[in-house]
């Protein structure tokens, strides 16, 4: 036994190492199961999957890519939050500060934005793939419903983030995009039957979203909190359900 192997043995057999890592990398069936079931992150997978479920041409890896995009936006988003203040006077200046002064600021902002766009595309393709393989059929019906809610949350996350740069592109895109709240029947002041509910421009569904009759400082703060706290939390909770369900039901596949 060489010196290095002896040192390795001492480390691996030390009580500290044994307390952290409960099994090694031996390529045994038992250990392969333990690698997944004994790891909090990997145990989102079942410990065994059907052979076709691993193939790229079956899964397109689109659900995984959607999740990866979510993770990229979480990591880059936290970085952006260090420098960005959701206050009308500062927000735009902070964007410039981020782009020109902060180390990797522009890269982090680019990755955050492109990952958000890519997440929308990936989640659509994931839905298309799941549809094409009929994977929403029993017993996975409810997981499809959860997936539809996650699709809506993806759009809402992207939409609320759209306002935060506080430039012309963002406020007018959000103005147009949220006009639908103003047009809601009964609840929006420009929707049908608005007069019966007594809503007006500063007291309707859009005013609730905006914190006032039009986009202003309150809207920025509201969208910031929705974007950075509320929607990520709800999305994470539903992702847990989504992953848990597919783990319990298994990947769909042709009958054996």
């Amino acid at each position, binding site marked *: 036994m060489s010196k290095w192997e002896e040192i390795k043995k001492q480390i691996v057999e030390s009580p500290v190492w044994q307390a952290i890592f409960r099994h090694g990398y031996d390529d*045994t*069936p038992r250990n392969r*199961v333990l690698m*997944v079931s004994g790891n909090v992150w990997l145990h989102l*997978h079942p410990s*065994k*999957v*059907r*052979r*076709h479920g*691993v193939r*790229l041409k079956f899964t397109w*890896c689109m659900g*995984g890519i959607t999740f*990866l995009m979510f993770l*990229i936006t979480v990591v880059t988003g936290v970085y952006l939050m260090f420098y960005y203040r959701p206050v009308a006077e500062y927000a735009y200046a902070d964007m410039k500060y981020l*782009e020109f002064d902060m180390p990797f600021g522009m*890269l982090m*902002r*680019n*990755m*955050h934005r*492109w990952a958000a*766009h*890519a997440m929308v595309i990936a989640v*659509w393709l994931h839905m*298309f793939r799941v549809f*094409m*393989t*009929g*994977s*929403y*059929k*029993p017993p*996975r019906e409810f997981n*499809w419903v959860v997936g*539809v809610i996650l699709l809506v949350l993806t*759009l809402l996350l*992207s939409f609320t983030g*759209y306002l935060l*740069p*506080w*430039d*012309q592109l963002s*406020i*007018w*895109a959000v*103005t*147009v*995009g949220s*006009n*639908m709240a103003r*047009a809601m*029947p009964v609840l929006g002041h*420009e*929707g*049908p039957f608005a007069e019966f509910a007594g809503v007006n421009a500063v007291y309707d569904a859009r005013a609730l979203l905006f914190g006032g009759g039009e986009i*202003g400082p309150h809207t920025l703060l509201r969208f910031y909190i929705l974007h950075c706290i509320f929607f990520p939390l709800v999305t994470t909770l539903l992702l847990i359900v989504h992953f848990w369900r597919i783990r319990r039901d298994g990947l769909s*596949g042709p009958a*054996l």
Partner: protein
Amino acid sequence: MAESKQIKTLVDVGKAVPQVSDGGRVEKTLLRAKGPGDDKIHTWPHLVRAEFLCFLAVLAFMLVWSLLVDAPLEQPAAPTRTPNPSKAPWYFLGLQEILVFFDPWHAGVVLPSFIIVGLMVLPFIDINPKGNGYFCYADRKWEILTFFGGFHVLWIVLIVVGTFLRGPGWNWFWPWEVWDSHKVVAMSNVDLPYLFGFRDYTLSALFGLAVVAGYFVLGTALMYWLIVRAKGREFMERWGTARFGLTSFLFLNMIAVVIKLIMRMGFNIKYIMVTPWINI
């Protein structure tokens, strides 16, 4: 040694099932242990490896994309300076585009709700047991055609039109045309009741209501007839009234978008039904 015992077993298995050649040696042990019908393989390393490689490739792609293309940042927000055109984020441009054909409460609230509800009820209205877990067109022709038409054709085409072909005043501009904000477009749209000679408000509204109601009643009857013809009466009984009703209602709403689009673009018809409260 435990290690050498392990290898000995695996070699034996390899001899026992020589026809299973792809994949690792341990899978052969499992195949023999559970019988020929079981095609499961270990997540570690097979799935985890595939995911890891995919993640690395996508991450590298995102990094290159972010290094090459900067995210847009325009002038500071100015609530008094409205750009023309003002466009929603690209993924909502399909909805903004159908504002050309429907009022905001319809295009922005009712239709998106129908899309979301329609997607959610999909697993419950589709009772075809075939095509679960594999790609196959022949087993699910109608389901796939509907989804493809609604999602890939309608939704994506509307987004492309809204993103690339709409300029100032939400007027149509081809990519090679200059965006002229003074473009004059004849507003020669009329409402359907007017086209049919109705000049009285009440009669116009009643006529419009009759057309809309007639569309759904006749459309549902036609769908019933077509489905019975294509799939047989036995299928319709199994499918049930609730599933059929929901499917045909949502399907007719989707087709109505196409009909309204053709009426507006081809025949300059603005509304089918006009009332003081809602227009369709």
